[in-house]
């Protein structure tokens, strides 16, 4: 998902746990929230830093493909809406960085790890937004997939993460609806506009399915994360839910999902659908997607170009504080 491949240490059985670890697991099983200053296993802390960090980075990098269209939106109203949406994503990144920082990692450390490629962000943001319809597809599909993942995470065991998720979920539904609204306009427009909408769906469908990550039914990392309640559903469960929810929405638009194998399966009560090309997914994660260099380059440039400004404000604040102290 926004955190697609989070590694954690293997899962411990109850017998292998120390008494402290067992008491910790009991608290989680009772549904208690874990707060930052409380004791937690090192693995729990580390996995959470990776997961929340990756999630935060995705929110921040995710501003870039949409930011690309702010000055070119078709109307002033669409510009204002898109600006508000992208600003929300900045907010989401900030809530999440703060949640990660309560675990003892600094903001600069997280930034440094993003910029050096040590920490990842979601693969989806390495695809280009070529037309205005792509902005519709991103809101509808990408935010739609994000919601699928984020809603259950509101119940995650780590207090600050859970609270950040609750805030974020309140804001996400606007994101998806504004995207779908763009798609409706395009799909009901001229034949060229409708073709654009179909083209956007064609290009974003499989990358959206990849957002949930590869199947993790047998993954030990996932088993541990689920025991700790920092992952609530398997990747396949969420992907299935997403497909089941999205297909009727595409039908309403009169657009077709680019998958000939798509078929309603009465028995399982869901659609059968084609898996995305996972070799493409791993290539994108490795840095070889269509926009990886551009995205990371833009982040690093913004960070470096802004350094003098951050330092200037800090120097000013220190000077004023010193002057105030001298006057006292």
């Amino acid at each position: 998902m926004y955190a697609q491949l989070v590694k954690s240490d293997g899962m411990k059985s109850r017998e292998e746990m120390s008494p402290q670890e067992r008491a910790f697991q009991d608290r989680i099983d009772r549904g208690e929230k874990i707060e930052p200053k409380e004791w937690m296993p090192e693995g729990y802390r580390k996995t959470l830093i990776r997961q929340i960090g990756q999630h935060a980075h995705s929110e921040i990098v995710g501003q870039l493909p949409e930011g690309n269209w702010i000055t070119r939106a078709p109307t002033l109203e669409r510009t204002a809406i898109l600006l508000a949406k992208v600003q929300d994503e900045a907010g989401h990144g900030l809530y999440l960085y703060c949640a990660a920082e309560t675990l003892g990692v600094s903001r600069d450390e997280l930034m440094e790890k993003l910029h050096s490629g040590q920490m990842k962000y979601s693969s989806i943001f390495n695809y280009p937004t070529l037309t205005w319809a792509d902005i519709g597809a991103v809101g509808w599909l990408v935010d739609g997939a994000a919601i699928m993942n984020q809603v259950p995470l509101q119940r995650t065991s780590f207090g600050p993460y859970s609270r950040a998720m609750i805030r974020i979920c309140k804001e996400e539904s606007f994101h998806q609806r504004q995207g779908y609204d763009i798609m409706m306009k395009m799909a009901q427009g001229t034949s060229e506009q409708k073709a654009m909408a179909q083209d956007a769906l064609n290009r974003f469908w499989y990358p959206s399915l990849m957002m949930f990550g590869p199947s993790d039914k047998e993954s030990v990392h996932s088993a541990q994360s689920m025991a700790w309640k920092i992952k609530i559903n398997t990747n396949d469960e969420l992907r299935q839910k997403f497909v089941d929810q999205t297909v009727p929405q595409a039908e309403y638009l009169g657009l077709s999902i680019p998958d000939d194998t798509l078929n309603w399966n009465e028995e399982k009560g869901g659609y059968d659908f084609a898996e995305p090309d996972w070799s493409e997914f791993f290539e994108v994660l490795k840095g070889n997607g269509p926009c990886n260099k551009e995205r990371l380059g833009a982040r690093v440039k913004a960070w470096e170009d802004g350094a003098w400004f951050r330092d200037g404000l800090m120097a000013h604040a220190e000077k004023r504080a010193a002057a105030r102290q001298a006057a006292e």
Partner: protein
Amino acid sequence: MSKEWPLWEVFIRGQHGLNHRHVGSLHAPDAEMAIKNARDVYTRRNEGVSIWVVESKNIAASAPSEKGPLFEPSNSKVYRHPTFFDIPDDVGHM
């Protein structure tokens, strides 16, 4: 490497008449900027009528390990709750 901006805790009064509530934190060089940033980060949808910020390092907190000695004594004092006392219905509302 340049110096990281300090961390601030943000408290928002959601409506007139309510207490300020902790909503999260953010980085800012000083209090003035912290309030400006808090406006953008935490009140984009009319969530507040007033903002407090305080530098995180200035907050003193009780230790999780002291939970027992601090809060258990009140567990046994059930008589502090009005429902501890049975007042006959005949007495009327009390």
